[in-house]
């Protein structure tokens, strides 16, 4: 039994760690400048926290015998949507910077 709880704890810790590094990874690839890195971090922070909470709720749903499907689908959609939105806005900033440099 203690081993079972240890495995559970470690898998949750692993999930949070993977999430955090994914978050830093996406912030790094979406940034254009160091300044935009902080802005991107901030804009991705709440979707990350929310999707993590949704995964936590899905886990507890399984424990208490409720359906976890809604939470999991929403968590994946939210994080994916946030990354896509961040990528699109960083792309448009990149294009705007290139256009203004070309004009000058």
């Amino acid at each position, binding site marked *: 039994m203690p081993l079972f709880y240890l495995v559970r704890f470690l898998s949750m810790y692993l999930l949070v760690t993977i999430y955090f590094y994914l978050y830093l990874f996406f912030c790094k690839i979406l940034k254009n400048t160091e300044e935009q890195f902080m802005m991107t971090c*901030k*804009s991705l*922070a*709440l*979707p990350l*926290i*929310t999707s993590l*909470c*949704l995964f936590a*709720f899905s886990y*507890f*749903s399984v*424990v*208490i*015998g*409720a*359906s976890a499907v*809604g*939470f999991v689908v*929403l968590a994946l959609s*939210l994080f994916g*949507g*946030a990354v896509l*939105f961040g990528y699109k806005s960083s792309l448009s900033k990149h294009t705007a910077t290139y256009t203004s440099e070309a004009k000058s």
Partner: protein
Amino acid sequence: MVDAVVAFFVLGIIAQLLGAKIPFTDGLYKSLSMFLMIAIGLKGGMALQQHVDPALLLMSVAVIGFGLLLPLIAYPLLRYFGQLDKINAGAIAAHYGSVSVATYAVAVALLEANSIAYEAYFPLFVVLLEMPAIVVGLVLAKGNFKIINREFIKKELVANQSILLMVGSLIIGFIGGESVQKLTPFFVDLFPGILALFLLKMGLVAGEQLGTLKKNSVFLISFAVLMPMLGGLAGTGLALLLGLSAGGIALMAVLGASASYIAVPAAMKESLPEANAGMSITASLGITFPFNVLINVPFFIALGQFLGV
């Protein structure tokens, strides 16, 4: 399996997304809201008459404190992560600190469908939770207490439609005695059907709001999903402290998770006209209400049963 009453909400969203023209007049919608508020108050008063609890006064103080706390959780999230100004952050925080009568009605319908008992005095808690968040939201938005004057108290506390109807029918249900039984065929037996119609309209409105989500940031969607989870957990904690039953835990969590889109928008329109009403309504009605009705309420009912055992 989806509950039949909740399925009407899904039908409303699908109908709106498909562009079906379902005629739903404003007058019908307001009549259905009035019916729900009166029915909830009346049922609560009738049940309260048989189960008067002396500890109710202390519980009421705790519930008011809970109502004051919720906007204080929402406000820093809105200011720091959303970079919103004080006015809009205060307005949205007020929405999420208050309650949704429709979400409460759905939770009650699901509890009764599953034969899960809950405390009779919950309509009183619904009424008590309507107002504190509005006061806190306004104070946070304005940065001072000057907005809380006699006219505000008279307009928003005494003459507020939701509070007047619910408190009034609660009192009628409590003091009416045998004569209240004459009203049960209409206000009690027809409650699930009227709620289904009301949810159909809510589905149509939520479907309409989904269209405006494209224009709004990912932040608003994240906040509108996170805050009900945090509020629900806070409500669960309060319910455990108060020693409520399984149904009571579920209902308190649902009250913490819900966001107002009837009473608070009207109050904000009067007291904070400079706030962006569209953002608050999109969050509370377009995202939080469907999330609560379809996912959160069944979860908190299961959680209540798990913790209440």
